């Protein structure tokens, strides 16, 4: 049971429960969605290049990436809104590549919600059921149950324009789930909402997810917190390609690429040169960052002289001030000068220019910690388990 506060100040209680007729969780964990080398091109522009992706039943996969990375195109290809120029799309093992959206039976919630503006809320939710020629009595019952599921039963006779963004989003979800899809696609469903409502709806989506264990979900977002909250696995997209896919923990703590480290968690990347042999991926490696020695987790094999980058999350740094510019020799300690300090409510964000290395790192300090001032000399220290090596190379 979730409680949400309306703008009027009245508390609205929203109970999320599965549709009454929902089936039993299938034991078979076959792939609900499978993309085999799917490409989408517009003329000479490649919008999606050779995407390989599987989503199991009951699994949520987030497609995360910046604008133009191909994540929405991938979703449109699954929904049948875009015809792939290459590759195959399978739903429950059946090739649906050439079929129309109507034949796929997928629930889709888009960024603008795409509610039918000339129809009342109950008619919007009933639309897919009427298209399936369901008996009227059953349609009425299903509509009632779906609207109750998202806490919108009191708004059944309103038009979409009479609802707030968050309410419209709930209706869009109810409409998509009314047809009992095996796959639910959500394309940036929270991006049109303000920050507080977005946080509220994220909690509701999380609750909804747990109440619909049989549905495979593909969630497109550019917001890492949404992906980390909702997804079992995250597929990081970049330049129309899949950069990396893995669990949230994997990608956050052991990113395999500099782009993932930077995009998911805003890690600072520093060029490094290996000084040890790492034969077994996952062990600690010694590297030199400028003239400073650092120890870091190496997810790949290394030999001395190999170039890589160390990735450190902003919150992983420890900061201590120092009175003058003395040399710093301790492992995993880097000297720097504070360039700027931003207060961010829950803490402070520092930009620190490293001394002896032409790099700037971002440091997040928790609230109540001593905050240095711009221009202060500091030593940044980080635990080796919070430093991970990623391959050398440009991020952009």
């Amino acid at each position: 049971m979730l409680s949400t506060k309306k703008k009027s100040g009245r508390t609205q209680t929203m109970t999320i429960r599965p549709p009454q007729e929902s089936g039993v969780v299938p034991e078979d964990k076959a792939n609900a969605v499978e993309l085999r080398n799917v490409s989408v091109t517009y003329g000479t522009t490649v919008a999606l290049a050779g995407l390989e992706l599987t989503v199991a039943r009951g699994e949520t996969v987030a497609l995360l990436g910046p604008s133009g990375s191909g994540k929405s195109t991938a979703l449109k290809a699954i929904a049948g809104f875009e015809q792939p120029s290459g590759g195959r799309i399978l739903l429950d093992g059946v090739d649906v590549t050439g079929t129309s959206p109507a034949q796929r039976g997928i629930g889709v919630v888009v960024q603008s919600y795409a509610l039918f503006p000339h129809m009342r809320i109950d008619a919007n939710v009933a639309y897919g059921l009427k298209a399936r020629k369901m008996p009227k009595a059953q349609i009425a019952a299903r509509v009632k149950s779906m609207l109750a599921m998202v806490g919108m039963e009191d708004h059944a006779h309103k038009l979409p324009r009479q609802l707030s963004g968050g309410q419209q989003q709930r209706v869009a979800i109810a409409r998509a789930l009314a047809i009992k899809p095996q796959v639910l696609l959500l394309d940036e469903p929270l991006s049109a909402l303000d920050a507080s409502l977005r946080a509220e709806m994220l909690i509701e989506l999380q609750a909804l997810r747990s109440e619909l264990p049989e549905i495979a979900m593909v969630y497109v977002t550019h917001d890492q917190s949404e992906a980390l909250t909702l997804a079992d696995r995250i597929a990081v997209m970049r330049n129309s390609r899949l950069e990396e896919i893995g669990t949230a923990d994997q990608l956050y703590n052991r990113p395999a690429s500099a782009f993932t480290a930077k995009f998911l968690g805003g890690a600072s990347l520093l060029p490094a040169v290996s000084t040890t042999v790492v034969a077994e991926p996952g062990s600690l490696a010694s590297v030199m960052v400028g003239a400073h020695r650092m120890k870091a987790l190496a997810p790949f094999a290394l030999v001395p002289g190999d170039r890589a980058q160390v990735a450190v999350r902003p919150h992983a740094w420890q900061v201590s001030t120092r009175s003058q510019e003395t040399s710093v020799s301790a492992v995993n300690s880097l000297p720097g000068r504070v360039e700027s300090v931003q207060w961010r409510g829950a803490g402070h964000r520092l930009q620190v220019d490293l001394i002896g290395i032409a790099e700037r790192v971002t440091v997040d300090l928790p609230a109540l910690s001593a905050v240095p001032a711009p221009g202060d000399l500091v030593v940044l220290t980080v635990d080796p388990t919070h430093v991970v090596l990623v391959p050398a190379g440009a991020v952009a």
Partner: protein
Amino acid sequence: MLLHAKSARFTIWAFLAAALLLLVGAPLLVTFMAAFAGSWNGVLPSNPTLDHVGGALATDNLSSLMVSLQTALFASLLAVLLGTWAALCACSSPANSAVSRVSDAVFHLPAAVPSVVVGLGLLTAFSKPPLLLNGTVAIVILAQTLLVLAFAYSTVSAATRDADPLIPLAAASLGASRLRVLVTIRLPLLLPSIVAAAGLAVALCMGELGATVMVYPASWRTLPVTIFTLTDRGALFDAAANTLVLIAVTVTVLAVIAKFRGKTAVR
């Protein structure tokens, strides 16, 4: 241009009001006065009479009015149907694509060509078998349809381009066939624009003369043709009375259409 001074704003508005009065108001006022004038020898008309208006509402002229109404309504219906269909087809191809550009050019062409040329073209094209339309009602309706088609197409086309393309896709993802999406989603969303196109088409058809005068058969004389004939004969007061009737009927039809349009605008 941004005008902040009150006096400057007043000057601009006064100039605009004077221009409108001179260009639109004066001809209408003169027509109105002439419709009720027994004679007009000085600055103002004299011997006011209802004879001309009575004549305009007599059986002969009323049949002209009915011809105009029927032609306008039928031609507008055809133009709106054809224009909507073309706009829906054009919007299914990407903007600025070859299909879209060709479609725009073809459907806008009649508006770019003088109406007399359209009339002449139709006469030339359909005066010999196998398609012999010369002297029939059909050629009048065809001429007016062609002339207003561009406006109908433009109005609906602009609405289709502005519409959220994800709405019909969302309907399709819910299992609706293309026909169901068209009938239950796309056309209802376009209805305000379709009605607006119909209003514009009716207004244009009711006053159309250039092409009609070249193709009309004697048995199918529209009111603008009657007004032109009366003016040509020097019966200016009768022409003015018929013009008043034409304006009144056109405004009434447009008011009905506007009321219907208001009902369709639920968004």
